[in-house]
């Protein structure tokens, strides 16, 4: 017997414990996950805590079967859906019952029509409105993803009652399934988070000796449903660009003692603006609590710049209407005068009291107004509730640079008229004018990378260093200060894993393997019969040749 011979072989050469080791080896040797047929980069949804409130999707790991929007039923399914097909109702349902969600975004967000954009805004708002326990990912459309979407949606047909039972059975056996695997590791709290705030100033000159200060503030971070997709061109790339342009213009003016203005200009690029202005909060605390007084204490006004390229109409948001004759109201008048040059630009004031019951402040100036500093925010948005202030739609392609340039001109002119106390002065113009190329270059740079606070909060961030170096060219005493969340009672917490890779495996249903086993058994049966009855075949061959031999 073969078995006995094999036994001898085992006795002589292989010990029996190999029979135990081998199954263990099979079990512990890892199945390599790299052999997936498709791999896509995916971007994870926001995941952060703010003032003890949880936001975004709380988990990250996915290892589930892909299903379409109409086909899924349990928490063992990962739903893959195009953005356009995902309604808010669907999403609410998914949030409660599904295993995971992968949203396929169109590869050019600027090509969406107005209705789709509005849909995306509402969806984003709804997604971020409360925490989600399932992992949510975003992927950019590719033709391979389209194939997967198609195949996945075809599986709906299995539940279709119009098909015959045989067809349904065949399709349920032969269906191509997809297994989505994202293994990004654990989502732990990000350590060593630092929100950088960059300040610099231009000293003014006044014969009286006492020089008041005007502060110009813009937060440089962005926000959207996924950190790695928030490019924030308008909000608040535009604010940063205007601040940089103002710094450039006024540094030229202030470099000559003869043309130095009557005001100190303080430039402040704050971090964490999208998480309740944490950067400016920390900076203000540092400044006001410092023993030697700070320039900010005798500020004439603080001007915050936020989202300034969306429209022609400029709004000056205040929490308390400025008194007649105060610097802020003078500036407002200058702004109106400057806007008159452009027929399309309108300037309006918007008054909104600070809601102290609400943890989240509406505009950045409220941080300063709380500390009794005269402050206002300039924006093209009428309300702080506008959803365009934090959306992945806010990309470079969706931004109109001409409007931005126009708004820069209005603000720069108003500020220069105010600082030099001239009316209808022609301070800017000629060689010293708003430079569109400069603005465009900065806008391109800022929107070339996502600027979510969690991505910028690491030590020695490249963007922060770059901004600092550039301010250094124009301003004096450029300093970076950091806002670090409190160890015991943190105001904000970021979580790791903002992007990953989804491995898509094409898999067959379990029933397919059973059918395959059955087919193999039948095949082996045929082989067995063939080998067993080979003598018959041999006999036929013999009879063929023997007849030939006889003929010969």
């Amino acid at each position, binding site marked *: *017997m*073969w078995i006995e*011979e*094999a036994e001898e*072989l085992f006795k002589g050469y292989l010990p029996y414990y190999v029979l135990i080791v081998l199954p263990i080896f*099979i079990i512990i040797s890892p*199945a*390599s*996950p790299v*052999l*997936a*047929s498709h791999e896509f980069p995916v971007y994870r949804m926001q995941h952060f805590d703010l003032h003890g409130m949880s936001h975004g999707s709380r988990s990250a790991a996915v290892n589930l079967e892909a299903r379409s929007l109409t086909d899924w039923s349990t928490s063992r399914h990962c739903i893959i859906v195009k953005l356009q097909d995902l309604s808010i109702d669907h999403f609410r349902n998914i949030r409660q019952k599904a295993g995971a969600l992968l949203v396929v975004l169109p590869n050019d967000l600027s090509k969406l029509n107005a209705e789709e954009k509005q849909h995306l805004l509402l969806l984003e708002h709804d997604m971020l409105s409360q925490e989600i326990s399932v992992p949510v990912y975003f992927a950019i459309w590719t033709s391979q993803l389209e194939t997967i979407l198609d195949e996945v949606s075809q599986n709906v047909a299995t539940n279709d009652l119009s098909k015959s039972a045989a067809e349904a059975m065949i399709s349920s056996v032969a269906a191509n399934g997809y*297994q989505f*695997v994202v293994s990004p590791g654990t989502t732990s709290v990000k350590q060593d988070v630092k929100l950088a705030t960059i300040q610099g100033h231009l000293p003014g000159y006044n014969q009286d000796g006492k020089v008041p200060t005007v502060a110009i503030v813009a937060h440089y971070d962005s926000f959207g449903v996924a950190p790695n997709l928030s490019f924030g061109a308008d909000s608040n790339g535009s604010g940063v660009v205007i601040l940089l342009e103002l710094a450039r213009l006024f540094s030229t003016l202030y470099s000559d003692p003869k043309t130095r203005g009557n005001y100190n200009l303080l430039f402040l690029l704050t971090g964490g603006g999208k998480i309740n202005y944490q950067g400016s909060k920390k900076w203000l605390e540092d400044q006001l609590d410092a023993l030697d007084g700070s320039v900010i204490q005798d500020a004439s006004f603080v001007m915050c710049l936020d989202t300034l390229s969306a429209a022609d109409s400029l709004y000056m948001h205040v929490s308390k209407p400025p008194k007649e004759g105060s610097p802020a109201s003078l500036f407002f008048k200058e702004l109106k005068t400057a806007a008159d040059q452009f027929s399309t630009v309108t300037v309006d004031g918007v008054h909104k009291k600070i809601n102290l019951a609400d943890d989240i402040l509406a505009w950045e100036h409220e941080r300063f107004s709380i500390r009794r500093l005269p402050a206002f925010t300039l924006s093209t948005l009428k309300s702080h509730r506008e959803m365009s202030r934090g959306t992945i739609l806010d990309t470079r392609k969706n931004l109109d640079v001409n409007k931005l340039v126009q708004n820069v001109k209005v603000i720069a002119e108003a500020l220069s008229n105010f600082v030099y106390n001239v009316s209808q002065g022609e301070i800017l113009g000629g060689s010293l004018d708003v430079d569109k190329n400069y603005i465009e270059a900065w806008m391109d740079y800022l929107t070339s990378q996502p600027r979510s606070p969690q991505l910028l909060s690491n030590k020695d961030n490249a963007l922060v260093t770059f901004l600092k170096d550039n301010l250094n060219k124009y301003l004096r005493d450029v300093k970076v200060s950091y806002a670090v969340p409190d160890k015991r009672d943190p105001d904000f917490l970021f979580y790791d894993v903002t992007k990953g890779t989804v491995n898509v*495996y*094409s*898999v*067959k249903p*379990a029933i397919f*393997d059973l059918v*395959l*086993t059955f087919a*193999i058994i039948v*095949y*082996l049966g045929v*082989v*067995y019969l063939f*080998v*067993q009855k*080979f003598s018959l*075949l*041999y006999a036929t*061959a*013999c009879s*063929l*040749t*023997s007849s*030939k*031999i006889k003929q010969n």
Partner: protein
Amino acid sequence: MTLYHFGNCVALIYVPYYLTYKYSGLSEYGAFWKCIQAGCIYMFTQLAKMLILATFFPDNVSDLGSDVLGEFLKSTVDLADLVGLYVVLAGIPGKGHSKVLTAGIGWATAEVILSRALLLWVGARGAEFDWKYIQKCLESNISLVQHIATATLIWLWSRHDLKSNFKPVVTALLVFSSYKPLLLDLVLKFLLAGPWVGLFVKAVVTLIVGAFTLTIYAGLAQVIGIF
């Protein structure tokens, strides 16, 4: 599920070998060691072939069809397989049936273990499903038939009592079976056939070669009186 699929593939690939060994009567001859010997000679032959290939064909990663002559020369190296099989046959004492079957099965088993086991272990156990592995398994089954036929042809070729008018046929079949993979690959490439059709064509061609071999063998066996 994936380990299960691996099991499926292993069953499909190795059970026909076992069945052939068991039910062709070889187990009664105590041919187990001879099979292992044949396997060792297979390994040695492959090593020699690889040395030749590596020495004379340094860039053997060209696309099929671009360099037909080079591919042809490479296939010529496969003639070494025939020499190897001849050595195996010479080393096995005994009658025609058991001799030929032992050589063929030993040779084919060594090939299937050395060239397929790792592929299945790495590939078929993964989460990804691919028909490729099932196809490879079926292909191995075909190559079992092919190797037994080749061994028979070599045995026939080495016989002096083979009728002289069969000699060219046997030689032609031997040469054909050596160049068969290249020829079939070229034909399938120009026909743009899918893997399943390719597999079917291979099976049919191999079965035809096998049928011819069987007929010639049966004729000779009757003449020299082994059954």
